[in-house]
């Protein structure tokens, strides 16, 4: 079995040092972005007020800004949102003006200068203390998710795999954050949710590869860990591509059709899925290899059992094949008899 597949194998693991360098480069790049530009936090985290209004026709932002400035909101940020008729206004939290009445005043100011009446589409007001809490909860959520993964994979596989998968997850999270820093797309609660979903997805990918690595360690009689891993990655290649493809397709649908509110969410997941697919091969497996994962490690506890299991599975398979052939013969015979009759 291995000979036939071996021929057309792509030597993924052979490139792992190159990949490592690429990963490091991307991580450093992300850190630079985070350090230089920082994340463009939404009001969920910073606190403040966000108002989305729809004008009956396209509106000049300069007018909106001057209206706002006249009403005393010099620092308000106004930008188009999705179309030229929609305007998004953001006002930072102000000392002593922690009041939800703000949105009413802003609406009054804007209404005063338009004749046709504008429509209030959305108001979000987050008090500074709530913002702080959400930030803290968000960071904790990511931390707990990582710890949960560490424990689960360590229990189900082995500590080297566990470290490998968590390394891959951290890698994915950092790079996704890096993309948000460089693009300055707003980072709000839904993006945080997307990052947690990325953790779930990327892990899913990693587990599938690890599962095959473990299986191959048990069934392949010989072969270095690097080779065994490589075979696993190759065996899973078609699946990895297919699943990433379908997931990316629906995410692209969300990205283009889901509307502005879900835009950041979809972007985070798209980046996450691409990076996650790459990292489950190169980061997770490579780290596990670097830490010296070996056949013995995986066999250690269930060594006897594992071998027995594998043997039994093999026997079972041979038996099943014979049965299948026998049955096929019988069916053929029956059909022939039917035909003769």
């Amino acid at each position, binding site marked *: 079995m291995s000979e036939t597949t071996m021929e057309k194998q792509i030597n993924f693991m052979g490139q792992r040092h190159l990949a490592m360098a690429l990963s490091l480069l991307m991580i450093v790049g992300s850190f630079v972005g985070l350090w230089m530009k920082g994340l463009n936090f939404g009001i969920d985290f910073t606190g403040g007020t966000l108002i989305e209004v729809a004008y009956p026709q396209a509106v000049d932002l300069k007018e909106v800004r001057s209206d706002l400035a006249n009403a005393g909101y010099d620092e308000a940020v106004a930008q188009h949102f999705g179309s030229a008729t929609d305007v998004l206004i953001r006002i930072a939290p102000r000392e002593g003006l922690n009041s939800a009445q703000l949105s009413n005043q802003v609406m009054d100011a804007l209404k005063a200068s338009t004749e046709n009446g504008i429509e209030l589409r*959305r108001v*979000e007001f987050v*008090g500074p203390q709530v913002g702080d809490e959400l930030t803290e909860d968000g960071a904790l959520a990511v931390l707990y998710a990582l710890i949960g993964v560490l424990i689960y994979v360590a229990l189900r596989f082995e500590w080297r795999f566990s470290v490998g998968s968590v390394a891959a997850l951290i890698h994915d999270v950092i790079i996704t954050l890096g993309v948000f820093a460089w693009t300055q797309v707003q980072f709000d*609660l*839904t993006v945080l949710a997307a990052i947690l979903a990325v953790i779930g*997805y990327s892990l899913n990918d990693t587990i599938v590869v690890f599962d095959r690595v473990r299986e191959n360690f048990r069934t392949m009689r010989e072969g270095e860990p690097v080779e065994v891993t490589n075979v696993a990655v190759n065996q899973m290649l078609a699946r990895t591509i297919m699943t990433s493809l379908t997931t*990316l397709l629906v995410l692209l649908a969300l990205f283009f059709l889901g509307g502005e509110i879900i835009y950041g969410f*979809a972007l985070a997941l798209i980046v996450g899925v691409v990076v996650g697919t790459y990292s489950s091969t190169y980061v997770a497996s490579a780290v596990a290899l670097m830490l010296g994962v070996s056949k013995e490690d995986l066999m250690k506890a269930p060594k006897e059992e594992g071998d027995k299991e594998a043997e039994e599975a093999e026997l079972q398979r041979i038996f099943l094949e014979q049965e*299948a052939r026998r*049955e096929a013969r019988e069916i053929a015979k029956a059909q022939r008899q039917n035909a003769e009759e």
Partner: protein
Amino acid sequence: MFQTQQKVIANRYPAWKYLLLVVVTVIGLIYAMPNLFGDDPAVQVSPAKSVTFDEDTRQQIDQILTQANLAVKSSEFAEGRFLIRFDNTEDQLKAKSLLKDALGRSAVVALNLAPATPEFLRAMGAQPMYLGLDLRGGVHFLMDVDMDAAVEKAYLRYEDEVKGALRENKVRYLSADYENEQLLVKFRDVDSMQAGQKVLQNQFGEELKAVANQETATPLVALKLSPSSIAETKKFALQQNITTLRNRINELGVAEPVIQQQGERRIVVQLPGVQDTARAKEILGATATLEFRLVEERGDPYRAEETGYAPHGAKLYKFRDGTPLLLQRSVIVSGENVINAQSGIDPEQGSAMVNVTLDGAGGRKMLATTKKNVGNRMAVVYIENRVETIEQNGEKLKKRITTKDVINAAVIRGQFANRFQITGLDSPQEAQDLALLLRAGALAAPMEIVEERTVGPSLGQENIDQGFMSVIVGFILVLIVMVWRYKTFGMVANLALTLNLVIIVAVLSMLQATLTLPGIAGIVLTVGMAVDANVLIFERIREELKNSSIQTAIYAGYEKAFVTIADANITTLLAAIVLFSFGTGPIKGFAITLSIGILTSMFTAILGTRAIINLMYGNKRVEKLSI
């Protein structure tokens, strides 16, 4: 042994698995169906507190609607309230204002969108999904109760009682003041301090911890609330505020308001369909107070109501249900004098009652009044003040609006001062409500809006449309890719994916979980990821086909891929659970749909596809698999 082996190779499923699949499909279809029918514009009429609707109300409503010539689509009376459906929103709006005028404050008349689920589905308990505010439009407020103020008020409440207790026991003290989360009672000398400490320990030992301090210039006793009474105080403050909010929201006329505690000090208020956030905020931000007044027994309140003139020295008030009552003009005691109000059971009559405690000044005034008025009635008036912005001739006017309701009127049985009981209440529930209102008028801890999210109706509809569109487009793209790659097997997977989508919608409808925009994103993501199980299985079958027979390959493909699928899905579920426990509102919605999707996809992608594939290929001679 041989029997089972043969079954396995034959790739046949026992009948019960098919039965299970059929049952799940049918149930899924039934419970997903209500989502196809849309809504009827409706008016919901629910009774205000202490009012119950009966046959008369029904006749009254019917009469009003027929008089106005409004076409009622259907009208039902359930759970003590009316739901009247109309064909169009025009009739709905007309009916609302008519009913509101006619029923006055005895009822809450609210606009509603009632699901137009057919009778046979409703009989089975099938309902459409519950849409979140970001989809249906509305306001979400997060109110923060100022717990420091609540605790401070609790100390101030004790301040008076502490002074009283010391006076009663003839212990001389210098002062008793609240400072830094404790009550400092200062004494002239150590002797009186020790006596004071003893008295306070005896009297308030359960709620307050008295610590003596002789080191300071003047000897003092520091009183600190025990942790349990602080917790109690906070719980009370939250409950009071929830009750007040509930009463105020009834004024707004919202069909399905959500008022919920969140954490220890927050209250979530969700008002679906409310667009006028300014008014909502004004009503929520009202302040309340109380007045105790004597009932003016001379004069007929009903006549006063008719003529609009009250007898000299009296003023016309109304109960919440509209019953008029004449009260004397002079106020005995107001809300500031009330220290506490708690419901309980009257030991003599066994009926429900409320214990009211006043402060020293209030007690003296009460004593002076009750001395002369035994046998007369005393009423409690609940007053709410709010500022509303009203447009008049194009100009905005701030108008102060005051509502005054008599919440109780009871006979004074004997003279009393700062402690008295209001007895003869109908039920413990009524006593609780009264106590809550008394406290709300007197001691409510201040609240503040710390988070607001308003979504306009057009944006809500747009969110639904865009969400729906991305589900459809994403879904179709996945279907195409699956058929392209896996041919017949891909079709089978697509069937399973469709079933999966139906089941997700059915489960969401059954749980009545809130569907939000991120929730829709969760469904979309599930569609993309749900095929993973089938991809894993099919790729494995292809692999196995290289060196084993067709039936064995199918069997091995499913068996071997299962462990991987389980592992992979459990880890994703892990992330979803973390999301659920840390997320708020919309994020929770995402976590819910993602988790449901993962679980249902396991069922449809493994059991569902296997059942169909067994049916197609099992126990047959197959030359080539279309995979």
